[in-house]
């Protein structure tokens, strides 16, 4: 797969504080890449470094082979960005605002932006932006972002101020953008949304990249909970593709990938009293790094490894 965004050893330091620490990741062309992490984990700093708004203390970031700091202008020609916190020119009408932003990109995409804003987001573009609610401003900015004729969309918490139906619209627009070949970086806090649309998800903590998960293989995997009538076996046939996640007396939790029929055949011969099959959501993975009981000391080997 072609890499379109790459960072290597990206570090941003403010005095003693590390906003980013040795971040190395790759985003592939045409994928939706989710960025997860609590506030202050470094998601926005990563995005702003890619956009050339922040200069990395060390390491580098590139977009389509272009250095994000030195070739920032050419990078921004390829990227459309939706900021996490929206501030607009209140004295402009919705239409004037879209026109202003389109003209900063040479005038392209205005018709499409107006179409998305009026038809999909149902905005009144004749009203002054200062009279828009927070959600309406977010919709206006989203209309602009999705209309830009660019290769890459970077959306920083794009659904934070939206109602449930508008959230659904945004997710559909992201899926549509991917279908058209655009690459999307989607930062957010709502795990179900990120899970639904992302091809891969990166989990960040205190400026470190903790984990990158391939959501396709995750979706193919299933969790199997089985309660055995007798003592469960200690080993399982390798060809079944079972991985024991938890063992609690006669109750076992497996992760399974592969053909389901042979799995059911095998279980039917084992004498199990109860069985449940489901998929694991991102919560489990997220809680592994950000759960209420997780402490830095427990993650120390990982954090230490990630130090520059």
């Amino acid at each position, binding site marked *: 797969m072609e890499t379109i965004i790459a960072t290597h050893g990206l570090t941003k330091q403010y005095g003693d504080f590390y906003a980013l620490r040795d971040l190395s990741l790759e985003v592939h062309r045409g994928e939706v890449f989710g960025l997860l992490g609590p506030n202050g984990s470094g998601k926005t700093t990563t995005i702003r470094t890619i956009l050339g*708004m*922040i200069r990395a203390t060390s390491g580098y970031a590139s977009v389509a082979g272009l250095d994000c700091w030195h070739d920032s*202008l050419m990078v*921004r020609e390829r990227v459309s*960005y939706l900021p996490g*916190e929206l501030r607009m*020119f209140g*004295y402009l009408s919705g239409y004037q605002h879209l026109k202003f*932003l389109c*003209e900063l990109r040479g005038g392209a995409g205005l018709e499409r932006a107006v179409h998305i804003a009026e038809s999909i987001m149902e905005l009144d573009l004749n009203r002054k932006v200062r009279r828009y609610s927070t959600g309406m401003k977010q919709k206006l900015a989203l209309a602009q972002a999705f209309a830009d004729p660019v290769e890459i969309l970077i959306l920083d918490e794009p659904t934070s101020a939206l109602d449930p139906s508008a959230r659904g619209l945004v997710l559909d627009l992201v899926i549509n953008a991917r279908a058209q070949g655009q690459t999307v970086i989607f930062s957010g806090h709502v795990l179900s949304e990120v899970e639904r649309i992302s091809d891969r998800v990166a989990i960040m903590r205190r400026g470190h990249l903790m984990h990158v998960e391939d959501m396709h293989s995750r979706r193919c995997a299933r969790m199997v909970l089985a309660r055995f009538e007798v003592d469960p076996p200690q080993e399982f046939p390798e060809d079944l593709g079972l991985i024991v996640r938890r063992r609690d007396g006669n109750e076992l939790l497996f992760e399974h990938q592969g053909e389901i029929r042979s799995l059911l055949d095998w279980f039917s011969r084992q004498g199990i009293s109860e069985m449940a099959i489901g998929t694991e959501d991102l919560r489990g993975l997220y809680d592994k790094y950000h759960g209420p009981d997780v402490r830095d000391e427990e993650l120390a080997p990982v954090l230490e490894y990630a130090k520059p």
Partner: protein
Amino acid sequence: MSKAFRTLVKRILMETRFFLGFTLLALFALSWFSIYRASLSEGREETRAVREMAQRGELAKPAPKKSAETKAESSESEKGKAEEADGKNVATKKTGDEAEKAESGEPKKTDDLASAKKQDEGAPAEPPPPPPLTEEQRRQRRARGFYQFLGGPDMDMSSGAIATMLMYFLTVGIPIMLPLFWGISRGSAAVAAEIERGTMDMILSRPVSRSAYLLAQVLTTVFGYLMMVVVIVAGAKVGESFHGLDTSPSFVALTRPALNVVGLGLAIYGLTLMFSAFDIVRWRPNMIASILTIAQLVGYAVANQPETADDSWYKLPGKLSVFSTFYPIEAFVKGEYLPRHLGILLMVFIATGIVALWRFNRRDLPANS
């Protein structure tokens, strides 16, 4: 000029239309008012008589600026701008003003008028140089200078003095202040205010270079200053067409002091822009630039009091002040010093502008900026 650049300029002009519009209107009106003020003394018998004397060569030409005496003229009203078109007539103006003030009961500025009169009467020989002052005399002189600067015991607060001060404020104070306000306001708005408001993200996430952004800001401000020159000259010309002057000032003569005023504004703009490029809140560059401007004005004023004129102790703040390049009366009458003064002011503007550009191109833009 790219479409993005034009859009940026258009946006800034739209944002500042009320501020700039008011400033231009006020300068136009005050320029007109200055002509009206000048026309009042033009019509007087005394003024005519003195002008005729000057034309007959009975009044001496004023000496070129080389002492505090001439410097003191710079604090004179800009109303003189429209009155004379060459150095010869400065004497006429001085005496005309004096006559007018005598008639209206306004208190005279004794030092200025006495020196002007001395010029008028054509002092045949320069007075012998004063003996060097002792340290004690210097100390007393400095103390007296400050006292005088703050008003002193002789300050006359009669209605005539207040009227004169008000007149100076209208014809000199405000026309200087308005371009300075414009410069400080636009300088802090260019970077710091945009970051504070949070709209910098929106603009610089588009394919707009930081240099182009700053250039659009600077060009818009310079455009505002050029418009100020136009309205000052236009105000004077329109005023003249209504009120009439015996000697019509040329466009060039009117443009020179206006250029001096906006040059000073540009220098202060550059200074504010430089501080703005380092900052993320608007109030700080505003405050620093305002304090520096006032400090320079005070330094210049202290250095040019009659009591402190030949005291080197006071020279330094005067020399460091950009106001030492501000000499609109001379710019109107002759313009001999204008190229040098404008050169210094433009150099301050360019140097501070380069620092601002350097800093802005290298700085981080904080989140939600």
